[in-house]
Structure formats: C-alpha cells, structure tokens
C-alpha cells in the first residue's frame, strides 16, 4: 500500500538520444550486421526480432551495466521485461542509471 512516505520511482521514458546510444552499444559489442538506427525500438531483442540469443543478451547486459552503472541481479526487477526490446531496455536505463 502506498503511503505518503513511499517514493515510487516515476515511470521515466527514455529519449530517442538514449535509445540511439544503447543501440550503438549493442551493435558495437555484438558486431551486429545492422546499424544502430535500423534497430526498431519495439522489436523483440530475442528470436524473431533482432535474433539475439541469451548469451548475446548477457553481453548487452554486461556492457550496459558497466556504462550506466546499473546493478542487474537475477532476482532483481523483471529482467525479461527489461530486455524485451531496445525501448524497454532504454527506459530501464533512464530510470536506474547512476552515471
């Protein structure tokens, strides 16, 4: 139950700039054959969409945690949701980044 003392994190949306930056990180660390602006923000990262496998997604996770100072944990927030698409990942970064 929310009380006045609770301070729920606002649902921050990522900017196009941040999405672009994250897309560039992904292209670089995975040597993807697409360019950053070809990654559709809402397309799934796994399977049908960008076609990443779980090890690719791990690599992305390691790179973005380092770059933005995130603390990703297996029992943390809904990681599957976070890594669903470029947009969801960027939104998460926008809300949680420490640098």
């Amino acid at each position, binding site marked *: 139950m929310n009380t006045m003392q609770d301070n729920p994190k606002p649902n921050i949306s990522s900017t196009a700039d941040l999405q672009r930056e994250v897309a560039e990180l992904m292209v670089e660390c995975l040597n993807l054959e697409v360019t950053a602006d070809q990654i559709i923000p809402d397309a799934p990262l796994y399977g049908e969409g960008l076609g990443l*496998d*779980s*090890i690719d*997604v*791990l*690599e992305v*996770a*390691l790179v973005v945690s380092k770059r933005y100072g995130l603390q*990703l*944990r*297996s*029992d*943390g927030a809904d*990681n*599957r949701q*976070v*890594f669903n698409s470029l947009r969801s990942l960027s939104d998460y970064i926008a809300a949680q980044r420490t640098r």
Partner: protein
Amino acid sequence: MTPHPTAGQAAWAHTPERSSMLMLRVMTWISLRLGRRAARGVLHLIAAYFLLFAPASRRASSDYLGRALGRPARWRDLYRHFFTFAATIHDRVYLVNRRFDLFDFEVHGEDTLHRLLAGGKGLFLMGAHLGSFEVIRAIGRKHQDLRVAMLMHEDNAQKINSMLAAINPEAVQDIIGLGHIDSMLRVRERLDAGGIVGMLADRTPGNDTLYPVQILGADANLPIGPFRMAALLRRPVVFMTGLYLGGNRYAIHFEPLADFSAVARGQRDAALQAAITRYATLLDQYCRKAPYNWFNFFDFWQPADTTMPPKS
C-alpha cells in the same frame, strides 16, 4: 515438452535424453527397493533391451565404437557400451543420495581445480556425455566450495529437477535452466561468489552455432555457446569426466581447458576457437582411454552444417 514415460522404442532411439530420463526413473524405483547389487541385475536386462530394440542407438554405438576401438565393433562391445550407460545412470541415484561409501573413486588433477578456485572468481567445469558428471558430487562432499550449479536447457532442467526432488530434495537447487537473462545473471552471480558452474558442452542446447572439429579422426561439430559464455564472463574452464571403470570404480579426471580471465576482446574469437579445439582433443583422448563411456547415442559424426543433435 511433456515427459513420455511410455515412449516406444523409436522414441528411445532418437531421443537419448528422454531415454536416459526414463531409465533414471526406472532405476530409481528399482534401486530404492532392491539395493545396488540386486538392482545391477536389472541393468543387464536394460542393456539387452537397448541392444535388441533400439536399432538407431545400436547403429550409433557401432559407428562410434568402430572409431574408438579402431576395429569393427562386435555384439559384446555394443552390449558393454549399453551396460556402461545403464550403470552410470543407475549410480546417479546413489550419488544424488550421497551414498559415496558405495564407490571407489580415483581422482586425477584435482589440484588444478583447487588452484583455479583459489582465485575466488569461480570457474566453469565442462564435461560431456562421457562417463558420469554426477561423480563431481563425490568431490563436493569434502569441500563446501565445490558445490556445482549445473547449467542446462530449461526443459531438461525441469525434468531433472523433478527427478532429483524425488530422489533427494536437497539436490534440486543446483540446476540453472538456460535460456533467459535471469539465468545468465545467476551464472555470473554464482561465479562472482567463487562458485563452480557445470555444463555438458558436447551437445547444443538449441540453435547454437556449431564449430567444426575432428574427434576420433572424423568430422564433428561442437556448439560454441558454452565457450562463448566462459569467454564473455572471463573465467577459467576446467574439463571434467568421471569414467566408469566397472564394478564400483570410477576415475575422475580434471584437466585445464582454457582460461579467459585475461583475454582481451580483440583476442576473444581466437581464444574461443583454441578452447573448442582443446575440448575436442580431450574428448578424443578420453574416448580412446575409456571407449564405453561415450553416451551420445546418435549420429554425432557429421560434416559441418548438417549435424542436428537433440536438445540437451
């Protein structure tokens, strides 16, 4: 995938993992009621059953043994191969139940393991469907830091977990189901805590990219996923196999396989290829040393791009 306890011989032949699950279920039932010595009589029936009613497994066995023994395999060789498989599956029941007193283990290269663990960053322990990986539990009994978390395909993880729960509820927490970011993060956390993550790296857990190698003088393909993960997480990799020597005897071997701790990103691909090639060499070496311990009962030897191993 749902389990098929009544799967017929064709399904057994084509899906080794399901056959071993079914066998484990049967063996658990028998073992817990009859004890190891009596239950081993049943193993002969199982070996005979495979020999007679699993033609695809028999062909795969014959093909493999021909390569490993360097001569055409005879019926008694095939029988011994199936019997060895049944015996190791059966012994899992006791190993999971921590009945190490029943066995005689000789251990080679354990110092490699301890030296690398002393770094405190954990390591990957890579085995194969070669002998028994479960015997690692016998090593773990002496050292608390040797708890191994097995990483495997989620479908199998669920099946094996329910099986382990039936045998020994305490054994369950040691399995990580492959496939999602959470499990990958669990692997990293396990390693960060100085722990061991185990994998059987000779079969692909899905649509993994394959890398062509030579094993027993012929073309085969190995999945690169396990090594990619080790390279990405920059950890040492130790090879392990627990070879069944007959009776109650096992020989457990540890071999240094690769160390990605200090590999720069630009050198990662080369290091990865060197690691897979070394893994293939170790498989070759131990297949020749203990030929009846190879438990891939499907057509493992295929030229590049055509191998379709079952989900592991």
